């Protein structure tokens, strides 16, 4: 039973491509993969917006949207209709071509990066050899589209915020890459499916071999998630469209469906990055416990993805926003050094792989120490003068 469930998507695909003549079959299966991703992640995006508003509400002691449909389930479609019916104003001074092109490119690059994420054991749209490199190539070019949006609207505020967005994205590109390199080094390949296979297996049947359960993996995941939050302009780092200062940043001049496109691109980018994070550190579609393999692999991927995205919402409901200089200082003075040290740590971990017995504990201790000590030291130097104060009372 579990095998058929596991291969169900493949059976469906073979059944559909069966209708078509031989030469066109590979084209149809490619199109089918695209349609599947768009359908699944389109719906996932829709209900992600609803989930975000409901969870944010629950964090703030209020029920969240519950008027449209039972428990507010039709809210995303209501938002879509609203976005579609809103008038699409293009400022007269704007650069018409770029103004139109920017949202399309942002969504396009956001979607392309789904091509290399392994959703299930057999569910990987394109099994590239240099998959991780492809992912970052797609991610980087969405910055370009963001700049085009800021520049095209010819508005003082959106120009300032486009520059801020670029500074933020570029300064967080480095920690993102530095967090991913140890995983590639340890699993020896750039292909995401092989990375997930490398994380298979369980010791004593219950402790999975995920990268996150190793000291360098945990530090890498910590750096990766901070950089991912900054990369998708979400809560503690949502500087470009910080409403308290620059109104809506580079989105000021967009309205109607173009604004919704930017919104969609942000969620796609978040899902893709979290998908990559799950693949690299949380063992992709691997089941957490041996006996739980009865559940199909793509369910595990979705569960882990949803947990990571829930944590992002949790962070969004809690943390304050950083100032632009503190943000870049955090990247260059905290995350990059930690990333480099983590690289060394992973190298040590790789070389000491064949230590046996008690040496394993020593190996763990050294590896943990190598990452924790610099974390505490750099942390103390960065927040040198900052501490909650004690107060005296007037006589």
């Amino acid at each position, binding site marked *: 039973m579990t095998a058929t469930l596991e291969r169900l998507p493949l059976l469906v695909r073979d059944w559909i491509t069966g209708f078509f003549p031989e030469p066109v079959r590979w084209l149809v299966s490619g199109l089918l993969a695209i349609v599947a991703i768009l359908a699944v992640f389109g719906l996932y995006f829709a209900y992600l917006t609803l989930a975000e508003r409901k969870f*944010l509400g629950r*964090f*703030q*002691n*209020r029920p969240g949207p519950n008027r449209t449909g039972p428990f507010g389930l039709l809210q995303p479609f209501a938002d879509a209709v609203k976005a579609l019916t809103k008038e699409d104003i293009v400022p007269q001074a704007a650069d018409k071509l770029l103004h139109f092109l920017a949202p399309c490119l942002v969504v396009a690059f956001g979607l392309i990066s789904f091509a290399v994420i392994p959703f299930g054991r057999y569910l990987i749209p394109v099994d590239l050899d240099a998959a991780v490199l492809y992912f970052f190539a797609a991610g980087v070019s969405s910055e370009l589209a963001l700049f085009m949006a800021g520049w095209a609207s010819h508005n*003082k505020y959106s120009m300032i915020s486009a520059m801020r967005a670029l500074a933020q994205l570029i300064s967080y590109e480095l920690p993102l890459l530095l967090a991913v390199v140890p995983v590639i080094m340890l699993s020896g390949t750039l292909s995401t499916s092989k990375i997930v296979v490398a994380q298979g297996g369980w010791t004593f049947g219950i402790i999975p071999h995920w990268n996150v359960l190793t000291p360098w993996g945990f530090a890498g995941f910590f750096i990766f998630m901070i950089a991912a939050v900054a990369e998708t302009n979400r*809560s*503690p780092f*949502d500087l470009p469209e*910080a*409403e*308290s*200062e*620059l*109104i809506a940043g580079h989105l000021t001049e967009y309205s109607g469906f173009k604004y919704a496109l930017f919104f969609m691109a942000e969620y796609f980018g978040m899902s893709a990055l979290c998908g990559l994070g799950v693949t690299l550190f949380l063992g992709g579609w691997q089941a957490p416990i041996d006996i739980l393999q009865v559940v199909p692999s793509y369910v595990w991927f979705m569960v882990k993805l949803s947990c990571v995205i829930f944590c992002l919402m949790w962070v*969004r*409901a*809690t*943390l*304050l*926003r*950083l*100032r*632009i*200089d*503190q943000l870049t*200082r955090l990247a260059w003075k905290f995350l990059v050094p930690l990333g480099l040290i983590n690289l060394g740590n992973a190298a040590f971990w790789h070389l000491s792989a064949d230590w046996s017995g008690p040496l394993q504990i020593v190996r763990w201790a050294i590896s943990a120490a190598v990452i924790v000590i610099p974390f505490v030291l750099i942390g103390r130097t960065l*927040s*040198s*003068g*900052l*501490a*909650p*104060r004690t*107060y*005296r*009372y*007037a*006589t």
Partner: protein
Amino acid sequence: MQNEPTSSAPGLAGTPANSSFDILHSPLGSPQQGASVREVNDPFHGDLLEVSMGPHHPSTHGVFRMVATLDGEIIVKLKPVFGYLHRNHEKLGENTTYLASMPYTDRLDYLAGMTNNWAYALAVEKLSGQVATERAEYVRVIVGEMMRIVNHCCLVGFLFNDLGTSFTPLLYAFREREKFLDLFEELTGTRMMYNYQRFGGCRVDPTPEWLAKAKALIDGFPRFLDEYEQFLTGNEIMLARTQGVGRLSPELAINAGITGPVLRATGVGYDIRKVDGYGVYPRFDFRVPIGDHGDTYDRYMMRILEMRESVKILQQAFRDLPAGPIIDPKAKNRGLRPKAGEAYGRIEGPKGEIGFYLISDGSTNPYRYRVRPPSFINLTVLEDMCLGHSVADAVVILGSIDIVLGEVDR
């Protein structure tokens, strides 16, 4: 990052003596006190950008405009512009009777209606020589301190909204504020527009059930404060964003007439409840918290510590509340004609010293009805605090001063 700024004691020329700080070498993010405006259009720095934030701006607490001249992100000049909500409250006061002005005082600082009523009642009692009854003085302290807690809840919530959280701290603070507003509604009839104090006492006597409910709420309030402090006071981003931001020196604060938590944050322990000892405050033992650095973090902590002190005062007030009439039977409210003369009555409102200066010429209407608005005068030093900071900090500094436009514009 904590280099002590040169204290800008005001020179005779009236504008604060600009310290020797030169904008070129201020590494972005280590804010200095006072910046020199340098000449413009040199090749490397580009020209200054004038940004008008407001009057319709998401974080200016109402219709308030700041014309800021920016060099990149750093503020070089900042001129507050207000008057958009000006409805000449003082001319209204001169055209209506003493009692009819009482409901208008709720609209001054609409987040702290009760303390406005109390200040006006105190001023008219001084003018006409009437004295409030014993029980009324205690009830005034009770509702006054509850109002202070409500006001500080609002401020802390709005301050965190300016700092960029997505409404979570604001909604926690408002959840507590709602309980206080429900109690005020049971006592006076409305949530914010109380019209509760009268010359010589209060309008309605709180029933024992109301007092029991209020006492239960006050006893539970410190638990909320502990949860709030655990949530935010130690937060590293909060420390980074507020410590050392918007520093104010004690000399400049005293000279610029700053009062309330903003003044006490600079280290000057001046609290009118202790200085004037109006009402029955001398009978309560409470402490006045003072800060050392005068920056945004100290101002935030002043409010939190003051809320804790208010809880102490309230517990003592509930304990020794005497019986007796809530209003002096011989007190004259309708058709009050105080003898010719003038009086200036002031109290320690949540935002600072709120005072009423009344000149009467024996008729039913006051000859001159003047309100001393704390938010309006606390804005004098907004520019001094914002110079050298970035735009994001200016919004936070404005939030920490706690202005309400109803009182600023009158």
